[in-house]
C-alpha cells in the first residue's frame, strides 16, 4: 500500500495543471441552466479544446484516437479538472463515456470511422434512449418495436429519461427486434439520427424546473439496418460491455465536488450536533475517495473487487445525507434556490439514488453477485 503518486503520475498532474491554468481564463462564463443551445456550444467547445490538447477520449485506446490513459491518470484528470472548476463532460457524456466505447468494442470499421472522430472533437452530440415508461429498473422489459422492412427497421414506441434528447444529433437506442424471444434475447442496439422523420421530443420538467431529460415518441421511424451495432437480438449484451474502460473513476468528479461543498458548509454557523454530522460526512467522502483509489489500484492490476460494486450505492446515499444536512444547517436560508448552490445540489442529488440502477436494485446486485445470496423468484 502506498498513498504517494509515482513521479510519472505527478508530472502528468503538473502538465495538466499548467494547461488548465492557461486554458480556463479564456473560457466564457457558463451559460444559464435553461439555455440549451448555448450549453451545447459551451460543452462541445470545451470538448474541442480537450481534443486539441490531447485529453479527449482520455480512457479510449490510442488506436481509436484516445489517449489510452492509465486508471491512475484518469483519476488525476477528473480530480484536477473538477478542482479547477473546468467544465464537466456535459452534453458529451453519452458520446464519450457510453456510445463511443460501445462502438469501439462492438461497431464495424465503417461505424467507428463515421462517429468516433466526431465524438472526440465535439462535433457530434449523442443521447440515450434506453428507459421506457414501463421499463425502468426492469429495463429488459422494454417494448419499443423495430420491425424489419427490407434494409430498414421501422420503429414504434416511446422512450423516457432520454438524456440530452432535445439537443442531440444521434441517439443510442434499445429496441425490441424479436417480440417472441425471452425478454433479454430479443433486443437490438441501434444508432438513431435524431432528425429522422417520426421522432417527437418533449423535454421533461424535473424537480429542478428543467433538465437534460426528454420523452421521445417514435412513430413509424425508418432506420437503416446498417445502423445496428452488434448482431440482431444481441443488444442486451452490447449494452453491458460499454462501461468497462471507465472502471473505478465514475464518481471522482462528484467526490471532489462533495469535499469542496463540505468546506463551504463548514464555514456556516451550526450547533454541535449538526457539526458532528458534518464530521461524519467528511469521513464518508474521504473513505469513498480512498475506495476510489482502491478501485483504481485494482483496475490498474486488471482485477476487480467488491468496491466497484458498492461505490455507486455508498456514494449516492452519503451525498443525500450531506444534502439533507445542508438544508438543516441553512434552515430558512435554504428557502431559495437561486444563487444557493447547496440547495440546488440538494435538489439535483435526489436523482442519484434512482438513476443508473436505484439503490434497491444495487442492493439486489450486491447481495446476489458479491455475497452469493439466492436470487429472488422472478
Amino acid at each position, binding site marked *: *500500500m*502506498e*498513498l*504517494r*503518486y*509515482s513521479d510519472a*503520475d505527478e508530472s502528468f498532474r503538473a502538465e495538466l495543471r499548467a494547461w488548465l491554468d492557461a486554458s480556463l481564463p479564456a473560457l466564457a462564463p457558463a451559460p444559464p441552466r435553461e439555455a440549451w443551445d448555448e450549453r451545447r456550444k459551451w460543452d462541445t467547445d470545451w470538448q474541442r479544446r480537450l481534443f486539441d490538447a490531447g485529453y479527449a477520449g482520455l480512457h479510449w485506446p490510442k488506436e481509436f484516437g484516445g489517449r489510452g490513459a492509465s486508471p*491512475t491518470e484518469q483519476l488525476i484528470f477528473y480530480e484536477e479538472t473538477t478542482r479547477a472548476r473546468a467544465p464537466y463532460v456535459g452534453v458529451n457524456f453519452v458520446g464519450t463515456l457510453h456510445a463511443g466505447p460501445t462502438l469501439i468494442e462492438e461497431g464495424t470499421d465503417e461505424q467507428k470511422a463515421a462517429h468516433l472522430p466526431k465524438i472526440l472533437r465535439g462535433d457530434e452530440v449523442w443521447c440515450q434512449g434506453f428507459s421506457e415508461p414501463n421499463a425502468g429498473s426492469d429495463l429488459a422489459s422494454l417494448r419499443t418495436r423495430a420491425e424489419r422492412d427490407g434494409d430498414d427497421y421501422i420503429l414504434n414506441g416511446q422512450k423516457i429519461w432520454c438524456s440530452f434528447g432535445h439537443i442531440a444529433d444521434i441517439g443510442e437506442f434499445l429496441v425490441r427486434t424479436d417480440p417472441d424471444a425471452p425478454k433479454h434475447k430479443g433486443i437490438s442496439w441501434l444508432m438513431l439520427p435524431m432528425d429522422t422523420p417520426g421522432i417527437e421530443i418533449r423535454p421533461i420538467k424535473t424537480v429542478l424546473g428543467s433538465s437534460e431529460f426528454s420523452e421521445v415518441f417514435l412513430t413509424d421511424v425508418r432506420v437503416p439496418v446498417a445502423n445496428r451495432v452488434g448482431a440482431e437480438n444481441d443488444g442486451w449484451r452490447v449494452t453491458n460491455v460499454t462501461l468497462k474502460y471507465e472502471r473505478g473513476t465514475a464518481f471522482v468528479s462528484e467526490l471532489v465536488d462533495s469535499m469542496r461543498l*463540505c*468546506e463551504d458548509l*463548514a*464555514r456556516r454557523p451550526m450547533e*454541535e450536533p449538526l*457539526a*458532528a*454530522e*458534518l*464530521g*461524519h460526512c*467528511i*469521513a*464518508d467522502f*474521504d*473513505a*469513498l475517495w*480512498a*475506495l476510489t*483509489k*482502491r478501485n*483504481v*489500484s*485494482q483496475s*490498474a*492490476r486488471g482485477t476487480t473487487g*467488491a*468496491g466497484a460494486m*458498492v461505490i455507486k*450505492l*455508498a456514494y449516492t446515499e452519503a451525498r443525500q445525507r450531506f444534502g439533507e444536512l445542508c438544508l438543516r444547517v441553512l434552515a430558512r436560508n435554504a428557502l431559495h434556490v437561486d444563487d444557493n448552490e447547496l440547495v440546488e445540489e440538494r435538489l439535483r442529488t435526489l436523482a442519484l439514488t434512482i438513476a443508473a440502477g436505484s439503490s*434497491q436494485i*444495487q*442492493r*439486489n446486485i*450486491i*447481495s*446476489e453477485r*458479491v*455475497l*452469493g*445470496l*439466492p*436470487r*429472488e*423468484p422472478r
Partner: protein
Amino acid sequence: MDLELSDDQVALRDGIAAMLAARVPMERVRTGFDRELARELVDAGVFTLRRDGFSWADAVVVFEQLGRACAPGPLVDSSLFGDGRTACIVSDDAPVWIEHLEALDVLVVMRGDGFETVEPGAVTADPTSWPLDPATPIARATELPPGAPVALGPDVRSVLFAGAALTAGYQLGLADRLTELAVAYAKERVQFDRPIGSFQAIKHLCADMLVRTEIARAAVYAAGAHLDARDALPGVERSVNGAKLLAGEAAIANGKTATQVFGGMGYTWEVDVHLYLKRAWVLDTRFGSSDRHALELAQAARA
C-alpha cells in the same frame, strides 16, 4: 499510488489468518486472554510489529485478521508498548476501568503530556463480576499509584492516533467476519420453503453490511498508509479520524444487523455474534469513540 495489498502484505495477512485459525478458534475466544495466549501472540510477532520493521499499513492488515478472529486480549495497547510485554493504556481519570488487569505485565497511565508505567501488582482495583464482553475482564480503580515516565512515541497524541488506527483495523475485521456469519446463515436458514437470504428484506440487510465493511476497509488501509507517509502528506489525523469513526460504526452496526439476521438464535449465548458485537462496543470506547472522531473532524474543518 496503490491502495491494494502488496504481495508481501497478502502473505502477511494469510500467515496471521492461518495462525489464528489454528491457535485461536472460537472455543478459545470464549475462554478469554491468558498468559499462554499472550506467549503465542508474542511468538507470532503481533506485539512487536513496529520493532520488527513492519509498516503501519502492515500492522492494520494484521489487526484486521485479529478482529476477524475476535482474538481476545489487550492487543492494541501491547502493540503500542511494543517490546513483547502485555500492556493496557489508561487515562488517569477516576474511576479508571482497566482491561485484562490479571494478565498485564505493565499498566501505562497517561499523565500530563506523557506516559508512565505502573506495576500492575501495585494497583488496587475491583474486578467486575459481569463484564459487558465476557472475553474482556474489567477492573475498577479509584486511584492509581505513581509510575515511571516512559516514551511510547514522539508524543502522546501520535501514539493515541496510532492506537486508533490499529483499533480501527481490528473493528474492520469484526465487521467483515460478521458479514460472513450473517450471509452464511441467510443462505442456510429456510423459512416459507426458501432460504431467508432470497428475501429482499434480508438480502438488503446483508448488502448494507458489505457496503459498510468495504467503506471501512478503504478508510482503514488509507489511514495505515497515511501513517507511513505522514511526513510527506499532510492530514494524517483526518485519515485516522475517519477510519476509527467508520470502522467503529461498521462493527457495531454489523453486529446489530447480524443479530437480526440470526433471529432468535442471534439472542443466544451459543451463537458467536454477541461476542463480536460486545467487542465492538468495548472498542468504541478506546482511542476515541466514533462520536468523538466525528466532532474532531468537524472542529478541524471549521477551524
